[in-house]
Structure formats: structure tokens, C-alpha cells
């Protein structure tokens, strides 16, 4: 975990407090709390996790365990846009590996990584359930179906 100084400064203890309180400070809501925190910061800053652990009166190890077990959580700052390349079976047999390779090449970043300018984070994801449109790439919330690898550059350019 190496959040940059600038990011750390952005964390408002009052915001974390409000999130935890909105779940009635229940430890069983830990996953939902982490989802809300990530919804705010796009990743889970260490300070936020420590504060949540304290407020829920559970050990930090438990919070860390949950935060690292589930794939939805990120411990490092993320890009402004998240590109998810679907690696479901239908996409796999319809050229998704080629597509992923192409995007990685265009962005010069490995799957799981973030571009140095923090514009894009690239992820391989399990089936997004749009198999009829394989291969599928999801940028933020937007789905791009039947995407051809020679359209990748144009797609990436369309994001500011």
C-alpha cells in the first residue's frame, strides 16, 4: 500500500464516519462499508481502513483480510477510467485474449496496472454476463460489445 501524499490528504475522517454510521456500525456490514469507501475514493486508502476498523471495534487484520480477499477491492489508487476486459468463456473463444493484449500494448500497462498519468486502470474481469455481445470491454459503466481489436485505439481516445 503506497497511497500518494496527495491522496491521503483527501481523506476526510468525517466521511468515513458517516459511511460507517450509515451501516449502523455493524461489523457484519464490513463488505458494504468497504464498497462505500471505495465508491468515494476509487480505492481503499489505508487510513480509511484503519478508521473503519476502529469504529467497528474489529481488528485491522480482519479488515485487511476482507479487503484483500475480494477482487472488487483495490488497495492502490486507481485511474480515472477503469477498463475491464471480460475474460468469460464466450469472450475467450471470441478473441478476448487478443483484445486484452492490444489494449495492454496501447496503454503500455499490464492487466491489473494503472497508467502513470492515472488516466486508465486495466483489469481482466470474470464474465460480465453479456456473452451474446462477446468480446466485451467495459469502460467505467459503459459496455462495448463485439469490440474489434483494431477499434481499440479509437475507443481509448474517446475517453478524456
Amino acid at each position, binding site marked *: 500500500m503506497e497511497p500518494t501524499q496527495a491522496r491521503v490528504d483527501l481523506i476526510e475522517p468525517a466521511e468515513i464516519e458517516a459511511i460507517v454510521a450509515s451501516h449502523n456500525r*455493524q*461489523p*457484519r*456490514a*464490513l*463488505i*458494504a462499508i*468497504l*464498497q462505500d469507501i471505495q465508491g468515494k475514493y476509487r480505492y481503499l486508502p489505508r487510513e480509511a481502513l484503519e478508521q473503519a476498523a476502529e469504529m467497528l471495534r474489529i481488528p485491522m487484520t*480482519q479488515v485487511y*483480510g*476482507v479487503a484483500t*480477499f*475480494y*477482487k*472488487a*477491492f483495490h488497495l492502490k489508487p486507481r485511474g480515472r477510467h477503469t477498463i475491464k476486459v471480460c*475474460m*468469460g*468463456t*464466450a*469472450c*475467450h*473463444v*471470441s*478473441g478476448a485474449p*487478443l483484445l486484452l*493484449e*492490444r489494449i495492454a*500494448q496501447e496503454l503500455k500497462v499490464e492487466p491489473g496496472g494503472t497508467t502513470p498519468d492515472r488516466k486508465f486502470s486495466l483489469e481482466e*474481469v*470474470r*464474465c*460480465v*454476463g*453479456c*456473452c*451474446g*455481445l*462477446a468480446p*466485451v470491454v467495459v469502460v467505467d*459503466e459503459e*459496455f*462495448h*460489445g463485439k469490440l*474489434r*481489436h*483494431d477499434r481499440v485505439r479509437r475507443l481509448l481516445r474517446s475517453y478524456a
Partner: protein
Amino acid sequence: MGAMTPIELERMREEARREARLGENGPRARIIVHMGTCGIASGAQKVLDGCAREIETGGIQGVVVSTSGCAGLCSREPMATVELPGRPPVKYAGLDAGKMRRILKEHVLAGRVVEELALGVGEERRGAQEAGPGEKLSGDNGYGGLPRLADLDFFKHQTLIALRNRGRIDPEKIRDYIREGGYRALARALTQMTPQEVISEVKRSGLRGRGGAGFTTGMKWELCRNSPGSEKFVVCNGDEGDPGAFMDRSLLEADPHAVLEGMVIGAYAIGASHGFFYIRDEYPLALKRVGTALEQARETGLLGADILGSGFSFDAEVIRGGGAFVCGEETALMASIEGLVGRPRQRPPYPVESGLWGKPTTINNVETWANVPPIIEHGGAWYASIGTEKSKGTKVFSLVGNVVNSGLLEVPMGIPLRRIVYEIGGGVREGRKLKAVQTGGPSGGCIPERLLDLPVDYERLTEVGAIMGSGGMIVIDDSVCIVNLAHYFLSFTQSESCGKCTPCRAGTWQMKRILERIMEGEGTARDLEKLAELAEAVKLGSLCGLGQTAPNPVLSTLRYFGDEYEAHVRHKRCPALVCKPMIRFRIEASLCNGCQVCARQCPVEAITGVKNEVHYLDSEKCTKCGFCTAVCQFDAVVKEPVAAGM
């Protein structure tokens, strides 16, 4: 609002039906845009927005635009349905905003069907819900040359029970669900049946768990009911993780109340007071729509205290998953609901005895719950009349992969696999040859072409080394390398293994390593033996379903495609020309017209040549990424076998 009673519910239904009627006092036309995730991904939002804007700017009166969930035929999205008074509905496919404007102008306003954009006419639903099996549409469709929707190959073999409201209702409006007969089964269960009678009816139906394992639902409920304890829970497992499967997503998005109604009926039968919908993090639309459904059910008095004046109280909440495949396993899922790391535990005790927080808990899959209301309404015997001896009713499948019509289908159990692939699916895409059909996701297996006449039911699929699974059905053509496919599934389970037990954690890793060696062209005959041995060990020794079934893709492909493994190992040859060390790329001079497209795509400048002249591919530089083959429109960049290491 006042207390909801069964009589009030019927009154509401009548009212909703009146409101929906087109003609004299109502609207003169209705346009329904189908907005599942697939539809939206294909541009349904633009179709909807364009349509709404046109109506507004044109000052068009009396035309209602509404939305519904997935219409089933994903490969033809976006789709919309047009309804005019006294005429059968017309379904359009492959739309965009411009085409929708044309339909609005010609069909909606002038009454002339736009035939070249229309898919078919009439309802797709045959039989199941309203009049029991065998119902037929009236003969004349009133639209001359258009085929009836129910006669199209994609729809005609389908029987809709779980998907009964497909394309007919707005999933964000409880009144739409009630209009189509919703919550009638709940009213009947709560006011006319004892919990034991509900259980008997579900047992009579023969309904088995649609999540994959196929345990008898009525039996599960009975065990849970008979477990001692004053507090019990019900859970809807919507953590649909199998790649290639989207039945649950579609159902939750298109008809959340159908699932909820089933759950409330189940809760009444079991004696549970609280329920959880555990839904995958990757399904934002499903999460939203189930949340809305719960709110509306609460406001309408169909959830909460003293439901329909029966004295039975029940409420439910939505839990958003964290993105871990293993949480589809019921004990891991429960740990996740409790806010913990989702690791499975040993069974017994089973959840029906000791589930959430140690209390008796019934966990059923989305589709299982959705089947419950029709069973209560039409009776278990009716449901049991559909399907085969041991697999009753229907099953929803997502038919995807290298197939012409991909989409969501609901068919009677026992239907031959061949009919699904060739009639409903329209055969293999781009005229290629069928190699196999993969069912059951990473826990399932590959069924080869020669076994395609197999009737689809739990037992028969298991016999051939596949499983029913949750319903993903992936059509695979001859461009797919079977070793690569086995490796794909194994990599999946390997990375999703929670790491708790050694056979799964280490065994799948070793199996993956062996497959990689084979794909690299370095496999030996001994590797094949080891692979089979390890597969058996992982199967026997793993703690939960994930590990116990992880070797299935390897075992089934070894069983049916042994020659393809042999080709890799013995002859260092990949028959599908996929494994990179065993192929090389070359430009076929007689086909190349020098368009330069491939050269521009090549990331390593391995392709050279001037415009309009035959290009040259330098295999020393080539990294075999395949970008060139994918863009060449003249099939001039060819792949050919080469002995590995050369």
C-alpha cells in the same frame, strides 16, 4: 396506503389491466424498449432516448414509451416491441435511433409495419403460465407476411415458466408484475395453504435446485422447516460466477418480483422471517432493480409485517457481493453475508441445520425461486408433467460462444442438445464446424459433437462427464484448441481457489503448469498420465464444490479429445492452430493484394511491403500476436503448423 388484502390485490390487478389497455380511453400505442444489460450495451438507451425525444419534439400525443428487461435474443439487440390497439404486438430487432424513428413514423403513427426491421409478430409465450401447457395462438396474425414470433426457430421450442414475463413488464413497476398475475400465488399460499401444504406442492413438482447441484427443493425446505430454532433465514443465491452464464442476471434484471415472490412463499413454508439477496458485484443493474423491487413490495404491503393479513411477517435485504467466485458456494456465501472472508467450510452441518449465524437457512438459486410461484398457482402435478422422469420442468440456459443466435432460452428438460444448438441457436457461426458444447462453467465439461443427441437433464449430463450447472452453454467451433480451453477453465478455478485446502490450492496449480507445458510443446506422455492422476486427487480431496469439480474440464476433454492432447504431446502440433510455439504466420502471396492493413496493425513491424504489392512477413520478428490475421479481409495471412522450438 391501507392494509393490503388478497381482495385489494385483485382490485389492483384489474386496475392495472385497465390502465394498460390501449384504445378508446387509453393510449393509442405503446412502444416497449427491451433494456437488459445486453440491450443497453448494444445501444438500447440511445433507441429509447431518441424515441422519447422524437415524441416530445413532435408533440405526439397518446403514445406510451415503456421499458422491459431482456427479450432473450441477445445477438439481435437492441430490440423493441410496438403495440397498437386490437392488433398483435410486433417485435423489432437490430435497432438504432434512426430505425426507431422510422418505426415511430411508419408503424406507430401510420399503422404500416416496417417489415424489413421486424423480427416477428404476436406473443412469444406459448403455454406455460396462463392456460397451462398446449395453449396456441389464434391462427391469423393480422400482419400478412410477417412470421409469428412463436414460430421462429429461436422461440418455438421454448416454454417460459421462470421467464414467464419476459419482455412484457417493466421490472421497476410492481403494478406491471401484479397485472400479469404476480403475487397471486403468494396470496394463495398465505391464505389457503398451510406451510406443510406449500412444501408438499413443491415436492410434488419435482423442482430441483437450478444452481447446479440439483438437490430437490421441496426436500430442502422440509429439512429446514423441521430444524429446531425460532429464527430462520432464506437466501437467494445470485452470485452467478460461471463465465458464460447470465441467466440469473437476466432474471433479476427483468423480473425481480418473480424471484421475490418465490422467496416469500418459501419463507412462509420454512418459517423464516428474514431473507437475503446475495448478488454479484458485477451486476449493477440487477442490484438496483432488486433494491427497487423490495422497496415497492414493502410500500405495497407485500413485504413487512402481517403480509396480506395472514399474520405472516417477512422482510428481505440486498447484499452486494465482493467479486469472489467461491462465494457462489453456499457456505462461503454465508460467510460473506456475515461480513467475513468468503471461505467455504466443511459440510455437514448443512445450512438447513446451521446456516447464517448458526441458524437454519435455506439457500436457493435465483431461477429456483422464480419457479415457485407458477408451481403454487398451477400445482406441482402440472410442473411435473413437463420434463423427464427425474428432471422436471424447464431449465433456463444462456446459449453463447460460436453460435448464430446467442441468447437466453428456457426449454423443457430432456430436449436434445442438438435441437438447442442447431434449431434454437441456428448452428455454428461463420459456417465453421462444431467441436463441442461446454456446459456447467469451470465445474462442467465438454460434450463432443457425436454425443449431441443427448437429452438435456441432470443425470444424462453427469453421465457424459459434464454437468447441468447453472445453465451456461457455450458452443465451441474448430477454431478453439481444446488444451487451451481446458487451461482457460483451470486458470479460472486456480485463481479463484480460496486457498483453504491443499488439493484445490496446490493441485489446480500443478495441473495448470502441466497444461502450460503441453501448450508450449514441451509436454510428455508422462504429463498426460500425471494430469489424469492429479485430476482424480483434486476431485476426491477438495473441501468444497469448487475444488471437487475443478478438474472436470480437464477430465472431460481428456476423455473426448484425447487425440488432440496426443497431437500436442507426441507430434508437437496444435490442430486448431492456436498454441503459438507450434504455429507460424505467413502471407499467402496469391491472396495478398497489398492493402497494408496488416502492416499497420503489426506491433513489431514484422510485415513489410509497398502498397498494392504482395507483403512479406518476417517470422524472425513475428511475435505471433495474431493482429494481422484478425484484420486481413482476404484471408491472406495464414497460420500453419511448425514443429515447436523451430
